[in-house]
């Protein structure tokens, strides 16, 4: 771990882009402003999507609709106000209203079509692909 006080100062900022702080912009376009970010594209994208309604489809075919509460670097997802999409087929989560979903069990996330600025996504992807 870092023990020099100077080093400690630097680690408070994002290690990927020393000149840009991760939390500097909370606007919808923040994921495109992370110029030299690698490995964080979808994490940033999902952070911008917090508060929107999404449907997470798991690898075991269970589909859960809910409000995106939070996401982390592994793309683990926390949903609030959840409902199972096909309630008759999957009755074991009838009373669950909030859940944490491990990122590795997700197959798809159905996103709101108006939740994205497509051009920003394209730009961020081109930058990410080059940096990776």
């Amino acid at each position, binding site marked *: 771990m870092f023990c020099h006080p100077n080093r400690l100062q630097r680690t408070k900022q994002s290690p990927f882009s020393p000149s840009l702080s991760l939390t500097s912009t909370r606007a919808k376009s923040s994921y495109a402003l992370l110029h030299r970010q690698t*490995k964080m*594209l*979808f994490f940033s*994208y999902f952070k911008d999507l917090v508060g929107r309604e999404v449907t997470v489809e798991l*690898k075991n075919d269970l589909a859960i609709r809910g409000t995106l509460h939070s996401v982390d670097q592994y*793309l683990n997802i926390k949903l609030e106000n959840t409902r199972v999409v096909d309630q008759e087929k999957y009755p074991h989560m009838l009373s669950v209203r909030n859940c944490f979903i491990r*990122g*590795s069990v*997700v*197959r*798809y*996330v*159905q*996103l*709101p*079509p108006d*939740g*994205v600025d*497509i051009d920003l*996504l*394209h730009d*961020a*992807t*081109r930058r*990410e*692909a*080059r940096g*990776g």
Partner: protein
Amino acid sequence: MATEEESAVKEPLDLIRLSLDERIYVKLRSDRELRGKLHAYDQHLNMILGDVEEVVTTVEIDDETYEEIVRTTKRNVPFLFVRGDGVILVSPPLRTA
């Protein structure tokens, strides 16, 4: 020219970059296929696709006749995030029509 270095195709992921904003075909695990417009991807092959058609193929074996019945189920999703660990291959759309 020095600036062409940026768009040079060096590794397989660069080939996918050429398909950004184009329609692509994605083969997934569990006999699933997607056709949609590629909007974003990363090195894990996590992707965001637009105007997606998902095709799920199932093979049922009749108990009596033992014949294989191949069924496909199609679904349309306007905007989809696909987790990369389920992706087998990415390609320009195949001309099957």
